[in-house]
């Protein structure tokens, strides 16, 4: 059995000016927080979080480079290759959850937000973006609880970065855990906040990957591998990390600024 499935896209949905969701039918399981290696034929293969679970799965991708730009031109009926799911899973702890998403990061958490709400948890989501038109999955998060919005330019909601909004929310209400995904420096601020407040936190990290299965070493974070040890890490795992929020590896393996 080949580990790659080739699937036609059923639907392509524009979520924001730079972000698209691609839906496809695939029988491969998948839990909140896990990712697929997605082959964009002729261009690249990239790790992408599952933004929809169930029979018709989905990935939600920001157009940030050559391959994702090519993918943005794909239509229903075009085919991609997928393998996975890979990586660990967001775990529900307690009854009150704060999810803090920045930019396209909410795509990695939305399945957990929905799943935790279905399990009876109160889920408050702080969604941040540069501007109002880049806010992702506000309605979906709102349907699973409460949503607060931050924009860098103040075009909607709180004017400022989403960790500052998160700080206001944890001052107002006691949370049992925090989930976060977004730009790494944003996540570092959220992890630091959670640590300071003694709230357990799970952060979903992103790294360039070649294999996705724990051998190529491209996604290493200190001595952890984002593909198999992560992508979700706790504050304890990130404590003392020299790389988190500071360094990543480029395609040649050089340690460069994150």
């Amino acid at each position, binding site marked *: 059995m080949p*580990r790659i499935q080739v699937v036609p896209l059923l639907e392509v949905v524009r979520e924001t000016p730079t972000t698209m969701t691609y839906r496809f039918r695939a029988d491969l399981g998948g839990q909140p927080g896990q990712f697929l290696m997605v082959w964009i034929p002729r261009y690249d293969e990239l790790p992408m979080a599952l933004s929809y679970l169930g029979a018709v799965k989905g990935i939600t991708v920001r157009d940030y480079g050559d391959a994702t730009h090519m993918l943005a031109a794909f239509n229903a009926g075009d085919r991609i*290759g997928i393998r996975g799911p890979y990586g660990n899973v967001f775990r529900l702890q307690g009854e009150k959850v704060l999810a803090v998403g920045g930019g396209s990061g909410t795509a990695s958490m939305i399945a957990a937000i929905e799943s935790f709400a279905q399990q009876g948890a109160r889920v408050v989501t702080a969604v941040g973006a540069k501007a109002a038109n880049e806010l992702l999955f506000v309605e979906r998060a709102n349907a699973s609880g409460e949503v607060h919005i931050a924009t860098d330019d103040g075009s909607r909601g709180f004017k400022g970065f989403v960790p500052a909004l998160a700080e206001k929310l944890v001052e107002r209400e006691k949370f049992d855990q925090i989930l976060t995904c977004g730009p790494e420096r944003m996540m570092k601020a959220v992890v630091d906040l959670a640590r300071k407040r003694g709230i357990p936190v799970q952060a979903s990290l992103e790294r360039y990957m*070649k294999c996705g299965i724990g*051998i190529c070493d491209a996604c*290493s974070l200190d001595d952890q591998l984002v593909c198999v040890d992560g992508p979700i890490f706790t504050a304890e795992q990130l404590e003392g990390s020299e790389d988190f929020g500071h360094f990543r590896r480029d*395609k040649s*393996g050089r340690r460069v600024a994150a």
Partner: protein
Amino acid sequence: MVDLRTEVAGVRLRNPTMLASGFLDETGGSMARVYEAGAGAVVTKSIGPQPREGYPNPTIVELDAGLLNAVGLPNPGIVEYEQEVKRARAAGAVVIGSVFGKDADEYATVAAKMATYGVKAIELNLSCPHAKGLGTEIAQHEDAVQEFTRAVKDVVSLPVFPKLSPNVQDITTFAVAAEKGGADGIVAINTLKAMAITPELKMPSLANRFGGLSGPALRPIGVRAVYDICEKVHIPVIGVGGIGSGRDALEYIMAGASAVQVGTAIISKGLGVFNEITKEMASLLEDAGFRSVPEAIGVAHA
């Protein structure tokens, strides 16, 4: 109790397992972790003179037969790589530095630099099946293997282990050439040149189209190669190809290998594979009446 310690050309190992080059060895943190998980030594990613990005993805494909890869020798370059070797050594790891280049001079230059980082031996990647225009491709000729080995031997005082390709008519002639070039040991075998096609897309599954096959399918090919090489040379051999259990490792040792390397099995078994192999090997050796690994080396030739 079976004594699992072994030695290859003066490199002392706590057990005969090594991490094969190309797996979890681009960063010092990962190499340290592999050593802590039980490997007797770790072989670095193949390092060249300059940073190199490698090929675009897809660079790996999992098949029933094993793992097909064409990663394309990505590496941070020998200068930057110093910090990775230091990080691994700080954790106590026995490190063997794998190097490549485009000609004998480049091999020698990179190896000489690598030698200053505190590695215990140099492995020469003469056999990567999917990197164009590098010594890995040029070394399809016995005289090139001899020349490259000699060039490196002339500039380092460490043991030098050329790693040979199975993609040749007769691998033993290459082993003999390496020995003539002054090699202190032979690593056999590298991956087998191979291809997979994705029928739904009517195209090869790897961006590079072809790559190197590793994993279980390679074991009988590697065992045969090691067995034959050991009949022709007087230097130690390190066996690699499809090893995922103590029994697999013993096949290579009984074929004549002094140590073995493990790579692809990490995918299915995780880093626990090193301890699993050494435990099973100890138990099998004990059952067969051996007291140490060296006693079992090459016994299948009798």
